[in-house]
C-alpha cells in the first residue's frame, strides 16, 4: 500500500508540471498584455514611453524563456508570483477569496448530498416506474439548466416577491452565522442543483449494479426485508462511486462558481478568475489554474487511495 501511495504521489508531479508549462505558454501565444489595459483602459493619454516603462517595471520586457524559468523556479518554492494588476502576491489575492468560495462549495455539497441520496435511492428501488422517470427528468434538468440563469431567477424572485436581497459584503461564518448564511445559501442552491443531479444519477446506477450482484440476490432470496437489504448492503457499497463523484465534482466546483459568482456579485475565486482573464493578468490566471489543478489532483489522489483500500486488485494491478 505504501509503495502504491508513493507511486501515486510521484505521478502527480509530471501532471502539475505539464499544467504549469501548458498554461504559461498558452497565455503567451498571442501578443498583447496587461499594460495596455492598466494604463489606457479608461482612455488615458499615455505615451508609448510610459507603456514601455511600465512593461519594464513589471518585468514583461524580459525574454519569454527567462520569464518562464523564473516562474518555474518560483513554483518550486511555492511562490506563485505577483499579480500584474494589483502588484500583490498571487497567493495573497487568492487567500482573501478562498474562504468564501470554499464555503459556497461546501454548502452546495451538503445540499447536493441531502437531496441526491433519497432521489437516487428511490429511483433505483422503483426502477422503470413513474418515480424513476420523474427523478430522471429532475436530474437531467439539473444538468441542463444553466446555473447562472437559475441564479438570476433566484435573485429576481427574491427581489420581486420580498423586495429583499442577500447582503453583498461577506461576513465570515464565525463572526455572524446568520448574515453569512443568508448571503451564501442562494448561490449554493444555484450550483447545488447540478451537483445534486450528477450525484443522484451516480447513486442510482451504482445501486442498480450492486443490487444485481449475487450476494444481494442471496440476501433477498433468504427473505431479508427489502429495506434492510438496501440500507445494510447495497447503499453502503454504492457509496464508493458516489463519494468519487462527490469528490470530483467538489474539485470542479471552483469552476462551476465562475459564472455563478458573477450573478451574485460574490468576491470569490470565480469572480477573480473572470476578472483576471478580462484584464490579461497572466500571473494571476496561472496562479489560480495551478491552485485549482493542485486541488483537483489531490482530490483524485484521495479517491484513488480510497479505492485501493477497498479494492486490493488496484494496488497490485
Amino acid at each position, binding site marked *: 500500500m505504501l509503495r502504491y501511495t508513493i507511486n501515486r504521489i510521484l505521478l502527480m508531479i509530471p*501532471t502539475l508540471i505539464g499544467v504549469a508549462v501548458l498554461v504559461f505558454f498558452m497565455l503567451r501565444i498571442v501578443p498583447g498584455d496587461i499594460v495596455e489595459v492598466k494604463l489606457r483602459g479608461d482612455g488615458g493619454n499615455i505615451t508609448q514611453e510610459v507603456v514601455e516603462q511600465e512593461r519594464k517595471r513589471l518585468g514583461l520586457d524580459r525574454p519569454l524563456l527567462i520569464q518562464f524559468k523564473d516562474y518555474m523556479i518560483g513554483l518550486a518554492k511555492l511562490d506563485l508570483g505577483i499579480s500584474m494588476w494589483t502588484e500583490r502576491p498571487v497567493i495573497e489575492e487568492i487567500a482573501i477569496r478562498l474562504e468564501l468560495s470554499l464555503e459556497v462549495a461546501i454548502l452546495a455539497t451538503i445540499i447536493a448530498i441531502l437531496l441526491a441520496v433519497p432521489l437516487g435511492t428511490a429511483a433505483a428501488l422503483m426502477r422503470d416506474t413513474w418515480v424513476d422517470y420523474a427523478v430522471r427528468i429532475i436530474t*437531467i434538468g439539473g444538468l*441542463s439548466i444553466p446555473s447562472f*440563469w437559475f441564479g438570476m431567477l433566484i435573485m*429576481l424572485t427574491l427581489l420581486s416577491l420580498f423586495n429583499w436581497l442577500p447582503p453583498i459584503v461577506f461576513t465570515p461564518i464565525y463572526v455572524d452565522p446568520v448574515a453569512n448564511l443568508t448571503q451564501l445559501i442562494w448561490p449554493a442552491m444555484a450550483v447545488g442543483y447540478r451537483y445534486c443531479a450528477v450525484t443522484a444519477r451516480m447513486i442510482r446506477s451504482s445501486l442498480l449494479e450492486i443490487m444485481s450482484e449475487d450476494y444481494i440476490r442471496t440476501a433477498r432470496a433468504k427473505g431479508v426485508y427489502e429495506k434492510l437489504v438496501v440500507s445494510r448492503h447495497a447503499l453502503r457499497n454504492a457509496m464508493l462511486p458516489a463519494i468519487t463523484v462527490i469528490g470530483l465534482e467538489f474539485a470542479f466546483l*471552483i469552476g462551476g462558481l465562475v459564472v455563478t459568482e458573477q450573478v451574485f456579485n460574490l468576491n470569490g475565486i470565480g469572480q477573480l478568475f473572470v476578472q483576471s482573464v478580462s484584464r490579461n493578468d497572466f500571473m494571476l490566471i496561472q496562479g489560480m489554474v495551478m491552485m*485549482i489543478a493542485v486541488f483537483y489532483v489531490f482530490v483524485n489522489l484521495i479517491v484513488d487511495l480510497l479505492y485501493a483500500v477497498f479494492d486490493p486488485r488496484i494496488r497490485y494491478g
Partner: protein
Amino acid sequence: MAVISAPASAAVAPRRRGPVMEFIYKQPLGAVSLVVILIMMFAGIFSELVAPYDPLTIDFASILAAPSWDHWMGTDAYGRDIFSRIIHGSRTALVIGFAASFIGSTLGAMLGVASAFFGGKIDDWIQRFVDVLLAFPIIVLALVVVAALRKTVVAGVDVNLVFAISIPILPRVARVVRAAALSVRVMPYVDAARAAGYSNSRIIFRHMAPNVVAPYLIMFTAFIAQAILLEASLSFLGLGVTEPTAAWGLMLSGNAADFYREAPWMILFPGIAISLAVFAFNLFGDSLRDYLDPRFRV
C-alpha cells in the same frame, strides 16, 4: 442518428421493427427528445424562413414590447423580435455545439485509440497529456483558451470559441475511448491480424475503430449538450459570441436583468431555450447509451 439507420445494426438480428421504431418503443423519452432536437435543427437551418423578423433590425418604435400576436415572445431593449432571435440563436447554438463536440470528440477518440493501440511509452505520454488537460475544470480551461487566443471569425463563426469549447471535451473522450479500445486490443483476432503482418492503420480502422463507435457516438451526443451550455456561459460572461449575433447566452447578459419588471420575457425565453436544448441533447444521449450499450445503465 447515423447509427440508427446504419445497415449493420439492422442486420445484426432479425427484428420485426426497424431500428428507429425500436428506439422509439424502447426509449420513449429519447424519442421525445429527438423530436425536440429535430425541431431545433429545422429552426436553425431554415432560420430565415421560420423567423418572422430580421434578428438584427433595430426598431426603436417598439422597444420592450410585451408578447403579442406581432411579437410572440415580445421584443428586447432595441425593439428586436425575441422569437426571431431565439430561432436564429438555435443556429448559433447548434453550429457551435456540433462543431465543438465533433472536433473535441473526434480528436479525443483518435488520441484514445492511438494510446490503446501503441501502448507503452506512447500510451504513457498521451495519458500524461490527458491528465494535464483533465486537471482543468471545463470552464476554466475554456476561459484560458479564450484568454490566449481571442477572436478569429471565419464565416460568421468564431473558430477560437469553437476550439476553446472543444479542448475540454478532448481528454474526457480520450479516456473513455482508450478504455473501450483496450478491451479489443487484447482480443485474439487483433493479435492474429498483427501476426499476419497487417499494417497498423488497417488494424486500427478494421478492428479497433468499429468497437469504439458506440462510446464515441454516446460521448459526441452528450458533449453537444455540454458545448451548448458552455457557449451560453461564455457568451453570458461576455467572452463568447458578440452582439448583434443572435445567441441565447448573450441575450441573458449585459443589462437584460435590468428589465425584469418591465420585460421579464427578456430573461425568461432565452433561458428556457438553453435549458430545453441542453435537456434534449442530454436525454437523447442518455437514451442512446441505454439503447446502444445496455451494459452501462447510467
